[in-house]
């Protein structure tokens, strides 16, 4: 008891400045918390209950929803397996993750989809156990390879599921799903392109270096909204009139622009990693008789990428947050739906702030989980 009192005194009332700071801090926390809690208690949240389907998938027709849930279950299984396999799980951390990830489930689960959710949960637990078991088994390397390959082919499979058997038109995709898909595509296409650009910028070939630098600096020079506007007004006029390329739908155009935009930022991140690799590594590999291409692929790049993984994850978070900017292309993403509900549904007129809070919460949960993962990787790799 005495130790506790001493600690409180040292922590809060160590000096005159501390006393003032503690009191203002306490008042500030009380003020903010009282506003937030009274807002939560006094608002009507039926808005979410009615519109959760809309928020998740936008205008997608009811009979196509199974596609979305299939994708969700695949992703959930992969995530749980990788967490069980790669991370050292402690109880405190996993409770935190579970609580956070419950929020989207609580928001999105309806009576019709309850079965899906239960199914996903059971499958996830089974795969979690499998991943945990194979962590120390003999087939460790094979399992590791399988997980990596499935991460790589996850996105193409998702696309297949969305389009197979006469799927809905791309312009009908919407809601939180499209934010996730756009972000995934941007990172999936932007990462290899970013690696090429970073290598180009570090290259000794003058022309290639010049072009890569120019590309990176120009893309980073203007804000993303401007590039998206370019995709809206100008891009169709520059595409060749082959295979119906000239009238690409707006979602694909947004994907192209986001990937090109992401690649410039990822290139800068990877360049930092390339620069931090000591020159001796390259020289040693030349001394072993490797040529410059295999030196880059097998010696320099793996080390550089390993160093920059946390930064790449934060770039990914930034891109994920930036997908909310597709409002300018009139794509019905989560933010746009969140703004349209209080404007168009009579029952929820004037509930803009509540609706926006739900949108912010969803973005926040996903970004927070991603940044926690990035921190875990950073600790694990010991950078």
């Amino acid at each position, binding site marked *: 008891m005495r130790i506790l009192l001493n600690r409180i005194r040292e*922590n*809060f009332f*160590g*000096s005159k*400045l*501390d006393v003032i*700071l*503690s009191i203002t*801090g*306490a008042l*500030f*926390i009380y003020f903010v918390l009282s506003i937030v809690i009274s807002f939560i208690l006094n608002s009507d949240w039926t808005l979410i209950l009615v519109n959760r389907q809309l928020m998740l998938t936008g205008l997608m027709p009811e009979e196509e929803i199974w596609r979305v849930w299939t994708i969700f279950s695949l992703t959930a299984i992969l995530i749980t397996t990788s967490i069980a396999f790669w991370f050292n799980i402690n109880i405190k951390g996993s409770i935190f993750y579970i609580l956070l990830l419950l929020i989207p489930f609580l928001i999105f689960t309806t009576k019709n989809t309850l079965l899906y959710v239960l199914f996903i949960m059971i499958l996830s637990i089974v795969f979690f156990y499998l991943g945990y078991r194979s962590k120390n088994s003999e087939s460790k390397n094979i399992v590791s390879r399988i997980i990596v390959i499935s991460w790589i082919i996850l996105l193409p499979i998702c696309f297949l599921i969305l389009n197979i058997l006469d799927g809905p038109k791309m312009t009908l995709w919407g809601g939180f799903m499209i934010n996730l898909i756009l972000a995934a595509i941007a990172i999936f296409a932007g990462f290899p392109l970013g690696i090429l650009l970073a290598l180009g910028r570090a290259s*000794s*070939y*003058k*022309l*290639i270096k010049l*072009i890569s630098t120019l590309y990176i600096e*120009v893309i980073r*020079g*203007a*804000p993303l*909204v*401007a590039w998206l*506007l*370019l995709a809206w*007004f*100008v891009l169709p*006029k*520059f595409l060749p009139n082959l295979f119906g390329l000239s009238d690409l739908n707006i979602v694909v155009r947004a994907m192209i622009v986001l990937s090109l935009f992401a690649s410039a930022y990822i290139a800068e991140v990877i360049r930092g990693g390339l620069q931090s690799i000591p020159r001796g590594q390259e020289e040693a590999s030349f001394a072993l008789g490797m040529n410059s291409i295999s030196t880059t692929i097998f010696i320099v790049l793996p080390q550089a990428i390993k160093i920059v993984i946390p930064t790449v994850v934060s770039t990914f*978070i930034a891109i994920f*947050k*930036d997908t*909310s*900017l597709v*409002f*300018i292309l009139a794509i019905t993403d989560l*933010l746009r739906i969140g*703004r349209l509900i209080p404007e168009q549904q009579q029952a929820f007129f004037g509930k*803009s*702030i509540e609706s*926006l*809070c739900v*949108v*912010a919460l969803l*973005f*926040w949960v996903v*970004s*927070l989980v991603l*940044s926690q993962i990035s921190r875990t990787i950073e600790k694990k790799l010991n950078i």
Partner: protein
Amino acid sequence: MPSSLFTQFKSEDSIKKKLNLLFRNRIFRRFFIQFVFGIFLLLLFFYIVDKALNLELGFGHLNSRAGFGLSHTFIIDYNSNDSRWMGYFAGVINTIRVSLVGIVLATILGIFMGLARLSPNFLINKISTGYVEFIRNTPLLVQIIFWQLLLLQLPHISKALTFGGLTVFSNKGILLPIISSNENGSLWTLILFLGLIVSLILRSRLFKYKEEHVDLFSPNLISFFTFVVIAIISFFALSMKLSFNVPEVNVNQYGTYIQSGGFILTPQFAAVLFALVLYTGTFITEIVRGSIQSLPKGQTEAAMALGLNSYQRITLIILPQALRSIIPPLTNQYLNLTKNSSLSVAIAYPDLFMVSRTIMNNAGHALPMFVLILITYLTLSLVISLIMNIINLRVTRIGA
């Protein structure tokens, strides 16, 4: 290409061997790869130019009448009869205005929150952590819209909150009292600014003189005194009158409420500003925290041993050293803030991006407008980088 390249061939070699030798030559390979790449680029370039020539090019349409009004103008007095160029420049000035104020406020907020994040005081520490974790992980656009919705929820102007008649809070904006003056005010401000520069130069000169010669006077006091003298003399020479301008709300004969006086923060401007400052502030907080943490702990301990108090420790020992590693990433955040100000298009604050979009919608010519936007943002970025580089040079020189 050096002549040795061809001398290594022997006439009896087969063509296959010759080619093989040729490609093993480093200089030839470099030349060949860049040549192929260059041809590919050239083709792409011609293709793009060919397509671009079919579009509307040229900036001629910017000379004609704009035909749209702007809700916010600053310095430039723009109305819808002016040319589109004028509208564009009004937009550029709006962007610069919100970015400049945002940069200053975000830096202050970031430094305080960064220090708070390292504070041993539990409450302060947790406030800072909560601020960073919550604001950084939500999209900026959501925040901008949130602030605008919140500011529009303020009471109608007929029931404005006045807080003892000093301010007016309503959904038409926030009015704050300012000190205003007669028509010589801007001239006086200019003189004050020049006086400040003169006294700062004087101060550094005096310090140098003091180091070399005698230790008889205080340069700080003398330069401050010079500044005060300049201010007072110019004040009376211009016959200045200062008054306290308090905002007020009146009802005219039609029953319309009119707000007048004071300094006005419109909901749009305030929303963009708050969101930009809070959002960029989180990143600056993390930069400041990282830089201070990377300093050796011995610096703080040595400062404590010298008997410096906590304020002196921070301002004299910690921050000057941390600044060296703070400034390069800080520059990046300033650039981000400037570019992010384009998101104000979502709530109709007429920055340069929104004005360009209006012009594109009205007059077409999307490609040249786009080039203009790109050039403007690149220029703004260059100016910021240049200023920050100068500051960086100064900061790194002090410690060296």
